[in-house]
């Protein structure tokens, strides 16, 4: 939200993740199984963060893994799951059913209105829907107003100002200029509405190169940037790599089993790997390189998803 005018924002991943403190309202960039800020998610778990209030539109393994690690107190997402592909999010589901996390489920369009209210510096914005929905029961902060111009009664929602937005991008420079490919999902809105923006990028490039690719999120909105190749894995970050469907299947299996199997996944891929370099070794450089083969042919692309 405030502009950040210092010149050099390039830091290591652990330093970048340290912007998130226990209890913070954290906006998660990307959506479903694409461009989720997974390296930052893993780093928050390594650092033992607790009581986070996570915010986002439709998400998957990022939220589920944070919940599995006991890092989340409040979940304000429009969806958490693995679509028809692998179904419900196992750890999130379990935590919601036992009351271990507060489910503050929301709607994409409502979250958008709340971020815009923050961007506009306004105390509220109206939305057209929500009224007939029980989603409203999850949000005592919503209210109603009568429009002074038309007399309509509309639901109004307050601003959402995340403490930190976590965003993964294919390309950025050390000043924090970020290039993203579409869909941006809510990333631009998160960047403008949040107090801090922490980014990971596949590659740090010169400002000229980032400008040539197109700046999606400008440096003055960004507080820290770290270079983390495969920082969205096991989700996709095109044009670099497709999502790692077998890895997601492995995670969902472990998370569904819970207990020792889930702890085993977290130990193997998160707490047992001190750095993302170690994570990439455990996943396997060959496997990671194979995810980049989507562009070789339609057949190769399809084969990744079988």
């Amino acid at each position: 939200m405030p502009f950040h005018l210092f010149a050099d924002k390039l830091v290591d991943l652990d330093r970048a993740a340290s912007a998130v403190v226990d209890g913070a309202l954290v906006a998660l960039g990307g959506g479903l199984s694409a461009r989720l800020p997974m390296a930052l998610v893993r780093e928050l778990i390594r650092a033992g963060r607790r009581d986070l209030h996570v915010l986002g539109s439709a998400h998957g393994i990022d939220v589920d893994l944070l919940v599995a690690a006991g890092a989340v107190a409040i979940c304000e997402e429009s969806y958490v799951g693995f679509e028809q592909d692998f179904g419900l999010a196992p750890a999130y589901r379990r935590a919601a059913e036992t009351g271990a996390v507060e489910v503050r489920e929301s709607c994409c369009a409502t979250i958008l209105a709340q971020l815009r209210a923050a961007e506009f510096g306004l105390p509220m914005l109206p939305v057209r829907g929500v009224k007939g929905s029980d989603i409203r029961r999850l949000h005592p902060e919503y209210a109603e107003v009568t429009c002074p111009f038309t007399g309509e009664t509309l639901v109004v929602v307050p601003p959402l100002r995340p403490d930190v937005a976590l965003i993964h991008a294919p390309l950025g420079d050390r000043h924090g200029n970020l290039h993203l490919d579409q869909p941006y999902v809510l990333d631009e809105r998160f960047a403008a509405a949040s107090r801090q923006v922490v980014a990971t990028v596949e590659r740090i490039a010169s400002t000229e190169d980032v400008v040539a690719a197109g700046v999606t999120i400008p440096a003055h909105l960004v507080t820290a940037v770290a270079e983390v190749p495969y920082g969205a894995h096991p989700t996709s970050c095109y044009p670099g790599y497709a999502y790692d469907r077998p890895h997601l299947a492995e995670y969902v299996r472990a998370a569904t089993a819970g207990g020792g199997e889930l702890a085993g996944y977290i130990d193997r891929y998160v707490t047992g790997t001190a750095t993302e370099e170690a994570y990439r070794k455990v996943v396997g450089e060959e496997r990671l390189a194979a995810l980049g083969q989507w562009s070789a042919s339609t057949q190769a692309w399809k084969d990744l998803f079988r």
Partner: protein
Amino acid sequence: MTFSIDEWFVVVLARTIRDREVVFHGFGSPCAQVAMHVARHTHARDMLLVEGATYAVNPDPPFIPPTGNDLALQQGAPYRMRFEEFFDAAARGDVDRMFLSGGQIDGYGNTNVTAIGPLDRPKVKLGGGGGGCNLAASIGSLTLWTARHRSGRTLVERCDFVTDMGHRTAVGTRAELGFTGGGPQWLVTELGVFDYDADGYARLCQLFPDVGLDEVRAATGFPLRVASDLRPINPPSPAEIAALRTVDPLGVRRSEFSPQELRRTFTHGTSAACAC
């Protein structure tokens, strides 16, 4: 030509789209997603197809991937909307149709994708509604669908939680709430097709030929209203089947059905040639 229930089902969904409509599907909805591409390649060539998680306009994907947010779903698209660009269009009434499903669907077309059981301690926490609770208010018409009607748990007397409003809830009707969209127009299941009567209540109007009225009644949790001219569903044309198989070579649509249901196959020229 032999075809299976998932193929026929998707074609029935596709036929709820009219030409020159602006149409959207939610994510995690492979049947609806495939149906939109089938419609665009058959009877609705001038529709505006907006992909559910990439917001790409009229793409020609080389195949439908198992996740809704994949680059394959942007291939060939002349334009990709921003997230807010799509939601703004829907809020002001420029989107004509959306496909919407639910773990529970009641007679008024209210849908639940949030939780089964009491809200404070749900029996099953479902994934959540995405953008539905605003989109369902202002998009022109809704095509509801489920491939799990036969389970007996999907079409219910009353949703445990209303995520997206249909024609009426305890709070009031759409008109009373100032909703600008028309609400549910069709409900397509693996057993048959419902439209909505003057009360905004689901009314069975078409049946798959291998399904009996008693089966539908047994699987439906709300009182079954039946159209006086109940008739069998028209089989898919060879062109529709061909379009579908080209669009969805990975068969992602099949992930919505139970394995038993997928055994239902049909052959052109026979009214109910179930091979199961």
